[in-house]
């Protein structure tokens, strides 16, 4: 597949006012609002365009599977530091592509803006976006950003596009900052209540400790330390007595890795269930007074709740807002997501601004209509 094919497809859709649904591997079909429009399959536009390990960037076409990209980076000891989910295997919940799928693509990863366990330490997807080749809703190719670490020429459109769910344009190629993999990693496990975990995570977060991920579920807290060997060893002994198990053998390290992959991929039982709420809160927010807590990630900033009937939605959204954050209906039947909106509603002023921005990139409103908000 060539860039021109994608350009012509969007130009034609623009001319005929046909709505398009941009799709890579489809690993995140479950995510966001309505799935509407003719499928524009972009998985065939794939491959790494440029990779410069010492310049710390990689440029890839949108259909490139993340697994393929990360394998190439791993050969040079590098990684995507935001640890994005690949959703490639059989999932516990309904998240994820069908078994045997090659999993999430680079374009979908940036369009969804979903980061994994290392988010709190390393940053969000957008923090690593250096440049984007975009095809807007009129079929025009636009290049924003570039391949250098620092670039303040013009508005930072590349980062704006992260998480825009394809509603502003097709992210045909993206350039991402890459980082070296840590030299050492160690996972500690603690028995801890929700309240205690939130307190400890915030206390540790204020100290110079090499914590690269945290995950709390059902009375247990997993803490991943990563960095220089000496730093990890020193942190282990500092956090010391509370460790339930300390992985020192190669076998145990592999187990720890599998464990974190199950969290990243959401195949861990914590993520099971038909309705799953994702609450983003200030790290130190007190428990928001909701039932059904399944997991806490990102040093306390991300909390997962199992939901039941839709009538609790106001309670969930209200509780998240009172705690200084916002709630997303992460997994639910599509009918429910369309009815309620997946994402927390915007203020009228912000929504109006969103509509003006949408219109400036996609004047006919043909790209992924309703995927982010029904009004976009």
């Amino acid at each position: 597949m060539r860039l021109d094919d994608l350009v012509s497809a969007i130009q034609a859709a623009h001319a005929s006012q046909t709505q398009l649904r941009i799709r890579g591997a489809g690993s995140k079909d479950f995510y966001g609002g309505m799935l509407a429009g003719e499928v524009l399959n972009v998985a065939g536009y794939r491959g790494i365009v440029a990779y410069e390990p010492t310049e710390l960037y990689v440029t890839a076409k949108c259909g490139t599977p993340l697994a393929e990209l990360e394998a190439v980076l791993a050969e040079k000891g590098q990684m995507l530091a935001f640890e994005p989910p690949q959703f490639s295997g059989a999932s516990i919940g309904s998240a994820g592509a069908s078994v045997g799928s090659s999993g999430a693509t680079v374009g979908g990863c940036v369009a969804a803006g979903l980061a994994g366990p290392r988010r709190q330490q390393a940053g969000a997807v957008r923090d690593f976006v250096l440049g984007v080749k975009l095809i807007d809703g009129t079929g025009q190719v636009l290049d924003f950003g570039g391949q250098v670490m620092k670039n303040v020429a013009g508005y930072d459109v590349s980062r704006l596009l992260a998480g825009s769910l394809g509603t502003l344009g097709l992210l045909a190629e993206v350039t991402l900052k890459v980082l070296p993999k840590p030299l050492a990693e160690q996972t500690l496990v603690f028995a801890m209540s929700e309240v205690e975990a939130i307190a400890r995570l915030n206390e540790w977060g204020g100290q110079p400790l090499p914590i690269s991920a945290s995950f709390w579920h059902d009375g247990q807290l997993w803490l991943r330390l990563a960095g220089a060997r000496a730093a990890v060893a020193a942190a282990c002994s500092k956090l010391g007595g509370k460790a339930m198990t300390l992985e020192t053998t190669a076998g145990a390290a592999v187990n720890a890795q599998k464990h974190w992959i199950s969290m990243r991929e959401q195949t861990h039982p914590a993520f099971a269930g038909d309705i799953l709420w994702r609450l983003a809160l200030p790290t130190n927010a007190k428990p928001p007074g909701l039932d059904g807590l399944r997991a806490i990630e990102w040093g306390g900033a991300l909390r997962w709740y199992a939901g039941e009937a839709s009538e609790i939605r106001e309670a969930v959204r209200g509780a998240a807002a009172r705690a200084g954050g916002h709630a997303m209906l992460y997994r639910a039947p599509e009918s429910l997501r369309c009815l309620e909106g997946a994402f927390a509603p915007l203020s009228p002023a912000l929504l109006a601004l969103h509509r003006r921005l949408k219109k400036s990139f996609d004047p006919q409103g043909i790209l992924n209509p309703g995927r982010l908000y029904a009004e976009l």
Partner: protein
Amino acid sequence: MNTIMLTTETTFQTDRQALAARLKLILPAHCLLLDEEDLRPYECDGLTAYRELPMAVCLPETEGQVVDILRACHQLGVPVVARGAGTGLSGGAMPHAQGVVLSLARFNKILRVDREARLAVVQPGVRNLAVSEAAAPFGLYYAPDPSSQIACTLGGNVAENSGGVHCLKYGLTVHNVLRVRVVSIEGEVFEIGSEAPDAPGYDLLALMIGSEGMLGVVTEVTVKLVPKPELAQVVMASFADVSKAGDAVAAIIAAGIIPAGLEMMDKAATAAVEPYVKAGYDLNAAAILLCESDGTPEEVAEEIARVTEVLTSAGASDLRVSQSEAERLRFWAGRKAAFPAVGRITPDYYCMDGTIPRKRLAEMLAAISEMEKKYSLRCANVFHAGDGNLHPLIMYDTAKPGEWARAEAFGAEILELSVALGGSITGEHGVGIEKINQMCVQYKTPELAAFHRIKAAFDDRGLLNPGKAVPSLHRCAEYGRMHVHHGDTKFPELERF
């Protein structure tokens, strides 16, 4: 050299009396400047080569006053230029002759430092360094540290997406701001971002940061605070030629090390700095590298050992590791004082801000050295080597006829070479008015048009900082006409005039 006038090409029909009368209804006398002698200090920012006198300077003390000023200007069709400390180096805060300067200087309170959540809520007129000072008792600090951090303000940092010497590891302003409160030109107040991650909707925070006062006026900023590393040490390495120093930078990254800071200075820069600061720099070296490691004592020891090994095999002729905090600060003092030090040896200097892929460094420095001959001007180079962000300091004397024009042309050539080498015309200083022509080299018509549409989504009458940051397509057509590269014009679709 045919330069296009860098004054803003936008004009507005402002009625000075009507404007003054309206502003007097909003602001008490001590918050409003209208007399020429009071306006004079605001005629430029840190880029003193470009000056313009505004019609009024407003110094509001409350968000309500900001809202009222913007509403009034919107109704009257008067342009507004927001201003922090005025330390910017690209003329972003240069006033508009028919407009108002909106100074946020009195928004100087730190509203909250939250130790547990590791964040601070500050007003935009708070100085960068003051945030770290307020957080210090908790062992926390605000990471971005532009060289002007003792004076520059958070509002200005947000407008420019400021960096500093530690941004390779700790990020730019965009990576360290969680939320901003913004007043639109129509006087509407928005909250963008939140203390929680992944705010719903488009990432307007990314759009706002670095937007150079073109999209809204920031009245409050929430920043992330990070734990202060227990220890920092710096390795100073000398190199007999700059290409070896450039290769050493790549070798450090290739070894999987992301240093807390990685800076380079060439011989002209160390020669200017050493008599001034006495940092102990090797004056025989063609270039010196400063490589900082921070973290726990164990981590630093491990990293310093690896850095030392890499630099040695990369051909460093001399290596010194700071043995105390005082020595570390002395090594850095020279780098942080590079601009004023150069200011001591030349009547004027012009600071550039291009970024290039690190591997093109030697090529760039060789080209700059040729340009020194071509324009008969000297140039000292300091370089955020880890990020590929180069600050050539072109030395000139305004009093000598023609020197400024040559310095300007010299600078433009460096920026255009930065783009040709795969980089950008600005890494952290912003486009402002200074690099408005080079934006025509960096971007083509469709991207510039997209920028204008984004601007219109926020400010459809173009009243916020008009004429800055994004050039009009006509300006680019004109610039392209005088400046044709390789025989191809960049804006063939536009009518020539």
